């Protein structure tokens, strides 16, 4: 229990500090609510239109796919390092990688067939 005392002190100080700062700004801070101050901040320009509008996000899927295939490539490197040694224990690692590549290929074919990479 004694070793937890420093943590408790740290917790207490941080709690005091947080609540203290909030309290001080609440008490001392000037309150001058004008419409420009209460409005949405949009880089200093007057806000225009609603915030809840649908917007085109066609690059989002490309980003997701890039991430996916990038991670796939990252898996190949450690596999290539241990592959040679594992051959003595049978071809299990080869099968595992083939299954993995097959799944990725299925995904790629699906993407191409669904015309996701066509941006227009």
């Amino acid at each position: 229990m004694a070793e937890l005392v420093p943590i408790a002190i740290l917790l207490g100080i941080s709690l005091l500090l947080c609540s203290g700062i909030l309290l001080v700004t609440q008490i001392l801070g000037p309150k001058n609510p004008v419409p420009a101050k209460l409005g949405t901040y949009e880089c200093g320009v007057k806000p225009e239109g609603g915030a809840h509008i649908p917007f085109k996000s066609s690059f989002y899927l490309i980003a997701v796919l890039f991430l996916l295939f990038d991670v796939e490539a990252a898996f190949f490197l450690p596999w290539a390092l241990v592959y040679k040694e594992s051959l003595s224990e049978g071809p299990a690692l080869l099968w595992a990688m083939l299954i993995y590549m097959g799944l990725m290929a299925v995904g790629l074919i699906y993407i191409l067939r669904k015309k996701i990479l066509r941006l227009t």
Partner: protein
Amino acid sequence: MSLKAFLPELTLVGFLSALFLLDGFVPKLRENRFPLVWVMVSCLGAALATKAASNLTGPFFNGMVLSNGLSTFFRYFFFFSCGATAYLTLSSKEIDSRGRSEFSILLLCLTFGLSLMALSNHFLMLYIGIETVSIISFVLAGFSRESLRSNEASFKYLVYGAVSSGLMIFGISLIYGYTGTLAYPQIAEALVKNNGAHPYVFYLALFLVYAGFAYKISSFPFHFWTPDVYEGAPTPVATFFSVGPKAAGFGALLHFILTALSQKDGNGQWTMIPGIQLAPILAVLSATTMVVGNLSAIAQTNVKRILAFSSIAHVGYVLMGFVVMTPAAFSSIIFYLIVYCAMNLGAFWVVGIVTDLQGNDDVSSFRGLGWNMPFLGVCMAIFLFSLTGIPLFSGFIGKFLLFGALIQVPGYLWLALLGVLNSVVSLYYYMKILKAMWLERPEGEVKALRLPLTQIVGLLGLAVPTIVLGLFFSPVLELAQKWVAQ
């Protein structure tokens, strides 16, 4: 060896890849119900593969995944509930031809994730399983893209999921710091060696890890997403959520507690590693979960929300089985999950039919349905009586076995009594639905519909086990005992 033991999941992935390609090359297939039939075929194939692989026990994939009797049970359970969900989606109006293939693909992916989750023997595997399930669940919850409620459900699910998996991974990191490993069997060894040193760190870590499990099984205090998600998600999706991911959470929790936190002695009994006291904590969690679930359900007027809170209460009952670590308790958990699967799928199925018919799922839209559609009314009555735990129905046997296992161990009589009291409370809100169905007159014109044969067969397929398991349960119970012992 590893690939052979993984055959059920590989079968599922094979069918899944084929569905991807079929959907890509033959876009016409989504016009009819082919993708859903394909899901049922894949579940059948995976179940057969489970049968073939059921005698291969032990850890595989370098100890990442554990195959034993419990794994076999959970695989069967997931494949059955996935197939049943696909079957009930056949006639659903909420999943129409535009989304049918995507729904089928996501359902199969989700089932694969559930399997990974329940079989995991390593924290990394568990985390990957939970994330696989979660991410697909977020998409499925928001599957009706035009519906604001569905979008809201998806978003809420995402926020809660992010928080709880963040907590869980923090807990996992603490456990790694405490034991120096992430594999369950090695964690058990390290815990024996540590012999209860630094209990604060350890219990904090356990609580944080439990956040992940609790989110998946929707146990108190991580249950808040359940009613909103079930209400907003399309009914077939809510049906699957109420059965599949919950069972996967219980499977993962069972494997975690049995492999990482306890030791098995010679005569098949599990004992907690010395210095770990989980029973009182789990008892409190179980008690609060069922009380919160039942009391919140009372005030609800939406049937899906009622069923969501009732599912939280049922999680509380199942958690009672975790309090006592006896084989009898584990086999009664399995029995309860089987029974719960039948009756809950059935109840949600009826809700789905009524939602398609009336356009909403408030209790008021059930008014008078019992007299207009007697078959539907009788089935709903069977499912709800069974969910309450009234004798002669299987829900009673399930609860009876759980309470029975609990009072074998001294000190937990209060929990069993609380469970009985909660069953009484639950009678009120289940009967609210039945009262609307049989004792109230519908407003305006009477809508009734002749159920198609597929629906009748499906509902009978769930209603008959709900009754039969209440009278003739020993074969299933023996099967459950076999799975636990293996």
